[in-house]
């Protein structure tokens, strides 16, 4: 089994993270925003796994499991919020939720 070099793995993680961040900033549909957050979490998890394999330590994979659990919890809360959001605004556009802004 060929060992993937650390730099390549980290570059992939960075690329995933940037993609996720770009999606978070650009997307207006709240489902896609949540998905972008998931991508960013997974990018972080990938960085842990790559680093763990580089030093032959299990800590990276344990960290990934923690992130996975946390992501599951986050999605559960996030989807509940999305449901409430849709009930409230009859849309999935995040920009509709601007009622707490300063009105000029």
């Amino acid at each position, binding site marked *: 089994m060929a060992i993937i070099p650390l730099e390549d793995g980290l570059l992939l993680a960075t690329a995933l993270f940037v993609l996720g961040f770009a999606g978070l900033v650009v997307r207006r549909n709240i489902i896609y925003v949540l998905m972008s957050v998931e991508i960013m979490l997974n990018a972080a998890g990938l960085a842990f796994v790559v680093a763990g394999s580089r030093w032959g330590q299990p800590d990276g994979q344990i960290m990934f499991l923690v992130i996975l659990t946390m992501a599951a919890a986050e999605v559960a809360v996030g989807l509940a919020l999305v449901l409430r959001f849709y009930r409230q605004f009859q849309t999935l556009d995040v*920009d509709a939720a601007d009622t707490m*802004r300063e009105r000029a």
Partner: protein
Amino acid sequence: MDRALWLLPALPLAGFLILALAGRGLPRAAASVIGVGSVASSAIVAILLAARFITSPPEGHAVVQPLWTFFDLPQLRVEAALRLDALSVVMVLVVTVVGALIHLYSTAYMRDDAGYARFFAYMNLFVAAMLTLVLADDLFFLFLGWEGVGLCSYLLIGFWYDDPKNGQAASKAFLVTRIGDVFLAIGMFLLVSEFGTLHIATLLERAPQVWAAGSGIALAAALLLLGGALGKSGQLPLQVWLPDAMAGPTPVSALIHAATMVTAGVYLIARMNGIFILAPTAQTVIALVGAATLLLAGACALAQRDIKRVLAYSTISQIGYMFLALGVGAWSAALFHFFTHALFKALLFMAAGAIIVALHHEQDMFHMGGLRKRLPLVFWTFLVGAISLSALPLIGAGFYSKDMILFEAGTSQLGSPALWVAGVIGAFITALYTFRMIFLVFFGAEKHEVHGGTSPAMAVPLVVLAVATTLAGLLELPRTLGHQPRFSHFMEHTLPAAVLREASVRTELLVQIASGGIVLVGVLTACGLWLRPSPIVRALSGSRAARLLEAGWGFDWLYARIIAGPYTTFARVNAGDALDGASTGVVRLAEGIAAGLRMLQNGRLRWYAAAAGAGTILAIYLVVYA
């Protein structure tokens, strides 16, 4: 008995405290009992004290009761003490007895008013302050009462505060009299710096030793005291507040703006007579102010439509007579006219109030008429007051007091024939406007529905004062009519007698016949002009001159132009100056920063995420590369 002196101001003050603290919860009957009872019991104490004072004069012709010390400094010691002498006996009797009658009258006049207890609370406070003023042994204590009556005047003119006009009239009265009070305060500072005391008797004793007669400093002190007196007594040029003060309830006009407070200036000058004697120029100024005021205000009274405003201008004019008397050194004549004026003017105001109530608060004389048969009691009492006011010969107290003033104005060393002529012309005008009132209100056709009769609480004070007004003249009979100078004899230990140049009985008789004749001519002229519609009156009414007189010679207009106008313009311009810029600049800066920061809080979730990301990148950059 003399120990009871402190009760005089304390009783009304206690009445005020009870009514002010518990007035809302008290039933009307209880409020009346406390309000009237406190002043009436004060009047009883005053009568007992006065009786004792007259029957067995105390040593030094004054009773002094020390109360407490205000403050004790190395340079100045001010004590609160009450002093009862001939001058304050007269003042106290008028304030308490006339005051008690007016309080009794008020129970009927204010019967349906929502602020019943509040009214009596203010009135009691006024009586307490006025008694402090006249009994004070020290100018500082006197000033306390002086400002106290000013405050009560303000509160009572603006008693019906629902109407902004009444509030404006109250503020006007307060501010204009305050101008005079500033002069009085400066005068007191001058006296403190010169003598190191404000104790009146000490001042009067030491002034002739320290100051030469006619010296500049004595003149300055006299003029400063005069300034205070002018404001309080509504004399030229500070007379503008008094006609507007009629916005208050009629009993207030009777008590404060006719009988008592407005004569505080006369009292002050009479009390400080030793200072004024040292400044003959100031006395001449007083006489000239008095003569000018009595003529100008009398002329204004001729053109008023509102019955209370006629009486207000008449009050200014009559106080002008008192100032004329003070100015020529006829001290006790001034006080005698104060005494009779308090009686007949309170009577006239209360009678006018009874008319106003009967006509549903109609005050325009041209809407009255023919009331002689509908309100007979009011007619007869008003007539008695009018006879006294117009100084109709022999009947009515006004004749005796005014005649004393006119005679001494013409013959005293400080007097002159010109002042006498001014007084006689004033007497003619007085007769004219007084009987104009009588004819317009009580004669002619009925124009207004009359509502009810005169209630007993109104009738009793009217009758009592009508009798008192008729008999008061007996206190001072001139030499031509039996020579019984009881009043001036009573005053002689407190007030110096007038120094007369020529005082033959023949002259006095001639003077009396002349002024009496002029008054009769005035009454007959009024009869010709106003008893029936007359073409002269019709031609004059609405003319430019009549409008000028109705507006009080345009003093209000003049003051608005030369004082109030420039002042408000200056204030408006000054509002935007550089100093102000510094403080407004801070405000502007804070507002600008707030506006910038507010733009960040735009409510966009994606914007916040981007900002958080950018912040993270910046933080990493700083940690790694910096």
